[in-house]
C-alpha cells in the first residue's frame, strides 16, 4: 500500500510541468524500473532466443530513447539474466552503451513490435542510431525473429490478454504523445 502511494506520488510529481526534466526523468525511471524488471523476466521466459542472438556483441547493452519522455530504456542482453531498466536521459552514459536508438515513442514501439521493418524505420530517418551499427542490426534481427505480434507479446502469449494489454499500451502511448505535444506548443 505504501509502495503504491509512493509510486503515485512519484508519477504525479513527474507529471507536473514545472519539475526539471532530470528530476522528472529520475522519478519516472524509479517508477518504471520494477515493472521493467518483471517484463525482462517474462520476456526471457517467453523469448529466450531473443537475447541469445545479441550475445555475440562485444558489449550487449543498448539504449532506447523516446523523444517524448525524459528517460532511456536500457537493455542488457545477458543470456543468463537479461536486464531491462530505465534511467533518466541526463544520467545516460552513452560510452557504456553499444548503441543508442532515438525516436518518437510510437516509432520505438513499432521497432520493438517487430511488425514494421526496422530497416524501413531507420532509412526513412524516423529513428536515429548512434554508436555501434552492429549492435543495432543485431537487435533488429533479434526482435524480428521474436515474431512479436505486438509489444505485449514480449511478456504474454498471443491471445486476448495480450490484445488488451496492447490496447492499454497504445492508449498510454497516445496520452504521452499528446502531453508532450501540448508541452512543446508552449
Amino acid at each position: 500500500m505504501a509502495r503504491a502511494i509512493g509510486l503515485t506520488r512519484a508519477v504525479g510529481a513527474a507529471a507536473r510541468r514545472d519539475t526539471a526534466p532530470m528530476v522528472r526523468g529520475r522519478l519516472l525511471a524509479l517508477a518504471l524500473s520494477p515493472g521493467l524488471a518483471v517484463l525482462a523476466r517474462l520476456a526471457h521466459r517467453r523469448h529466450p532466443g531473443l537475447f541469445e542472438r545479441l550475445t555475440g556483441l562485444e558489449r550487449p547493452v543498448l539504449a532506447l530513447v523516446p523523444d517524448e519522455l525524459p528517460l532511456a530504456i536500457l537493455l542488457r542482453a545477458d543470456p543468463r539474466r537479461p536486464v531491462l531498466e530505465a534511467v533518466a536521459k541526463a544520467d545516460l552514459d552513452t560510452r557504456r552503451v553499444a548503441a543508442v536508438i532515438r525516436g518518437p515513442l510510437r516509432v520505438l514501439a513499432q521497432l520493438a513490435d517487430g511488425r514494421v521493418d526496422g530497416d524501413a524505420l531507420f532509412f526513412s530517418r524516423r529513428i536515429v542510431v548512434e554508436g555501434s551499427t552492429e549492435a543495432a542490426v543485431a537487435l533488429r534481427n533479434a526482435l524480428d525473429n521474436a515474431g512479436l505480434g505486438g509489444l505485449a507479446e514480449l511478456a504474454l502469449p498471443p491471445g486476448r490478454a495480450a490484445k488488451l494489454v496492447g490496447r492499454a499500451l497504445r492508449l498510454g502511448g497516445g496520452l504521452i504523445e499528446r502531453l508532450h505535444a501540448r508541452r512543446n506548443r508552449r
Partner: protein
Amino acid sequence: MSRAAATELICPAGTPAALRTAIDAGADAVYTGFRDRTNARNFPGLNFSREEMKRAIDHAHGSGVKLFIAVNTFAAAEDPGPWRQAIDDAARLGADAAIVADIAVADYAARNHPELRLHLSVQASASTLEAISLFRREFNIQRVILPRTLTVAELARLIPRTPVEVEVFLFGAMGVMAEGRCALSSYVTGISPNLGGACSPAEHVRYEQKPDGSLVSRLGRHAISIAKPGEAAGYPTLCRGCYRTNGRSFYALEEPTSLNAVSAIPALLAAGVRAFKIEGRQRGRAYVGEVVAAMRKALDAAMAGKAPQTLATKHVAEGHHETLGGYDKAWH
C-alpha cells in the same frame, strides 16, 4: 528441357521467424545459412544455430517446402574446418541441397557426401557453359544460380545448352559487381563476402548526424553517402556509394536500387528457367512476407499464361527504386 517439372520460387530466410513467414507466403523452397562465416550473409544476430536449422528443416519438410543451406563462401587456407563442418551438418540434418561456390568446398562435399545435392552459388562466378560444365563434371552439381547480369536474350541462348537446372534472380538488392570476386569491402574493412562472409559489415558502419541535420553513412573512415535532412538514409555499401569524379558527385558505380524482374518472367520461363530466387536474407519478416506473396502471385499468373502484375513493391525496394538490371541490355 520440359517445363513439366514445376518452376520453383526460392525465398530467403535470415531467421526462423522469416522462414515461417516465407513458407506461409508461398515459398516452394527457402534458403538459409549457419551462424558463422561459411555463408555470405554473416551479419550480427542473423542466421541459424544447428538446433534451429534442424527444427527449420523439419518445419519446411512438414509443409512440403524444400530447404537449401548456403555454404557459399571460400574456405580459409589452413582452417577449412568450419566449411567442412557446415557441409557435414547440411548432409546430416537432411537439407535438400547445399549452395556452394568454392571449388574446395564443392570438392569436399562431392567426395564425402555424394548424396548431398549441390547447387552452384552466384559466388562461384560461373556464367558460361564452360565454367558450369567444370563444376558439373568435377562435383556433379545439379543446379546453377546465374548472376543477374546476363540479358534475357543471353539466358535464352545459354539455358537450353546448360547441362544442369538454372535458377535466376527475380527480386532483391542489386549487386552490380561480379559476385564472389569483389574485394571492395575487404579493401576498407578487412572483411568481404569471400573473407569473413559479409559485405560492408555492420561493425565497420557508422552514421554521423551533422549539425545541419544531414546524415553521413560511413564505412570505415570513408563517407559513402550523405542524406540531406528529410532524405532517406542508405547503408554504406561501397558499390552503391556517391563518389566524386571530374568535379561531379554521383553514383559512379550504381544507384541504390532493387531488381524487379517480374515483367521478364514469361520470357525467362520460355527460356527454360527452373527456379526464381528472391534476394534478402538480411531483410526482416515484413519484407519477406510482402515480397514472397507478391512474387508468388506474379509467378502463378505467368505460369497460368496470364500477364504477371508488377505489384506495388517499391516501398520495400532499396532506395525505393527498381530496375530490370542486367536483364535489360541498356543497363550495361
